[in-house]
């Protein structure tokens, strides 16, 4: 077994062990559950790394990265829609603001000749995590600004206002050159921990640990970033699972189900809605930051309402709104359908060409057709999605509501 396969399998163990841990019966003692999860996770990781060809493997890894980023954003939407019933169709706004904020915080502003090609308002050269936090904060502030005046009004006004903010954000990043290089892409967004796969290594890491990563070459960076995004999904998931089982989580569902009853019980409904809206937006903004650092170069066109809003809605509705596991599942399934449909359309090229010579080039839009139909079918025939909402009262009461 080569060193590369070993280190790759160790990296993959982190997300896989978490999945196994969740799948193992909860009755098992932690002392047994954790080592078992690690062992099983590593076995699977090793098997996959050894058996699957390298090319396919790195494709799967990048697939999982984008899937995880979508999962983070779907989790954010789940706070807003799944638990609180807020209809946000401007996800793209928070996604884009998060991505550009983190990019501006972590890049360094170009000087000299380069400044003529790339303009940006500022570049702080801050570390990755600072960028991600800043992305969350700015997206949260934007949500407070939008939600403040609209959340006290009818439900549909929020939806309309969020369309508006998404369009406005897109227009700003498309037209304002000084802010984030206008219609041109903002390039050179740093990749976190990229030094692990570089020849020079990370100076701050002790030599023995660094030696472990030595077999990796720069093109294996996908595995490192996969671990980062997977950890992000895991942490967000665990925090949200805690939150929705807390009194606050019950409050959110109370507002969703019976707004008037919640208000009559002395709860400040508008305030709770605003909290949920901001929390969801913070998560979306962080998801945007993850996206920016993965893409390295971003521009306004990445945040088209189709990719950055609609697809995420279908993910949550398919997986099951009001269920964090559903949000993650939906994100991966829909991302799989979306990328898989690309292969299918490619395979259909000759058939499409026979119908009309222009059709093969428009193949990608057939995917949009498929996804739009899928959403309508979900709404008509299975509104609760694949998993549906978990009924529970509190994490302290063991029994679940029927």
């Amino acid at each position: 077994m080569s060193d590369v396969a070993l280190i790759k399998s160790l990296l993959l163990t982190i997300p896989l062990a978490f999945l196994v841990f969740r799948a193992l019966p909860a009755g098992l003692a932690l002392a047994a559950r954790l080592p078992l999860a690690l062992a099983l996770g590593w076995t699977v990781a090793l098997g996959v790394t050894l058996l699957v060809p390298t090319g396919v493997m790195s494709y799967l890894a990048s697939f999982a990265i984008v899937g995880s980023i979508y999962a983070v954003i779907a989790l954010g939407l789940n706070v807003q829609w799944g638990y609180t019933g807020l209809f946000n169709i401007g996800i793209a706004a928070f996604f884009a603001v998060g991505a550009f904020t983190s990019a501006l915080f972590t890049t360094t502003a170009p000087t000299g000749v380069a400044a003529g090609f790339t303009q940006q308002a500022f570049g702080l050269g801050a570390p990755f995590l600072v960028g991600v936090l800043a992305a969350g904060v700015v997206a949260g502030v934007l949500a407070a600004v939008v939600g403040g005046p609209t959340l006290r009004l009818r439900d549909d006004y929020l939806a309309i206002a969020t369309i508006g903010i998404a369009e406005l954000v897109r227009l700003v990043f498309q037209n304002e050159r000084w802010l984030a290089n206008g219609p041109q892409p903002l390039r050179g967004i740093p990749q976190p921990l990229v030094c692990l796969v570089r020849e020079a290594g990370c100076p701050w890491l002790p030599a023995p640990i660094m030696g472990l990563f030595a077999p990796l070459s720069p093109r294996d960076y996908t595995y490192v970033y996969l671990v980062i995004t997977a950890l992000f999904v895991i942490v967000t998931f665990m925090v949200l699972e805690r939150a929705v089982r807390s009194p606050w989580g019950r409050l959110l569902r109370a507002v969703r189900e019976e707004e008037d009853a919640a208000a009559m019980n002395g709860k400040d409904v508008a305030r709770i809605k605003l909290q949920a809206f901001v929390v969801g937006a913070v998560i979306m903004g962080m998801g945007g930051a993850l996206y920016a650092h993965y893409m390295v170069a971003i521009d306004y066109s990445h945040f088209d309402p189709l990719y950055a809003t609609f697809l995420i809605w279908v993910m949550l509705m398919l997986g099951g709104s009001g269920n964090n596991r559903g949000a993650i599942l939906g994100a991966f399934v829909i991302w799989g359908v979306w990328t898989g449909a690309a292969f299918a359309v490619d395979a259909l090229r000759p058939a499409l060409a026979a119908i009309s010579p222009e059709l093969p080039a428009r193949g990608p839009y057939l995917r949009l057709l498929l996804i739009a139909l899928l959403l309508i079918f979900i709404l008509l025939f299975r509104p609760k999605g694949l998993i549906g909402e978990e009924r529970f009262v509190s994490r302290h009461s063991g029994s679940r509501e029927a």
Partner: protein
Amino acid sequence: MDAMTPPLTTRRRPGERLKGLLGSRWALLTVLALVVAGLWLMASLQGIPGQRVLSLMVRGVMLGGILALGAIGLSLIFGVLRIPNFAHGDMMTSGAYLALLALSFIPLGAPLGPFSFGYEFLVALVIAMPLVGLLGYALDRLVFRRLRNQKSPPVIMAMAALGSAFLIRSLIYVFWGADFVFYYTGRPRPAFELFAGIRVRPDQLFILGLALAMIILVYLLLERTKMGKAMRATADNPELARVTGIDTESVIRWTWLIGGGLAGAGGVMYGLDAQLRPEMGWWLLLPLFAAVILGTIGNAYGALVGALVIGIVWQVSTAFLNPAYGPGVAFMVLILVLLFRPQGIFGKPGGA
């Protein structure tokens, strides 16, 4: 929103009084007039000649006419079905493209007078309008009626409307591609001087005239026919209408047909004024909703007033703002309305 207290029975705190004052219909109209005046002032401060601003206002009225065709249907559907029809913009797009499709079957005629189009364009318009009406009706039959029968919450219907929007747009992408197209490529479209240095294109006057004619038709329909009255009653208060014995399903059918037809006409005219793009209707969605909310949901005449205001503000703002921000300006107006008078110009207090 808490209901406003009657002014005579209780004494109101100064803050509430100010809010009540700001929330009155006339205050909102004054604010809007001030917005237009402010835009004018900003334009003149930047040395933009008054003539140009005046031309932009005329263009704004024309754009308002196009928007009104979409907004009237959107407002009626919103009022009658309680659905914010996010597919309305894409229904407008489909009208524009269906007219393009119809044009390809009709022999090309000579341009009519000063206009850039011939008789075939009018035929295409007449074909496209009912088709979009039928598209709206089909959406209702296939999607919204099922959801109504399942007693789905309104927000699920809103999401279905969003899904329909992307469904329509994906079909347009598949059939016509993503590039923009013109109804008539290579035909000169010169502007001429109307009066006082205001320059317009003949096509734009045609659009304005046609929009006005259709709005008058809608007025007659809503005021003089039984169905029109039933429609207004249902839009105003669906429960009350049902209790009074109005056949709501038939009202809903006609609302989709008429709203769709008007949206189709609006799309054709928007396409004639600029060009056809699959996203054109989606970009109009925000101004349309701004017009509908400004003019009070469910009120067809309010939608007309709202559309004119939005059209003018949008056009005049291009004198000193990047024209790309047009929908953003509409959004700002929307936020102002939501802050001060969410029930719109013609709404009852506390009705939002």
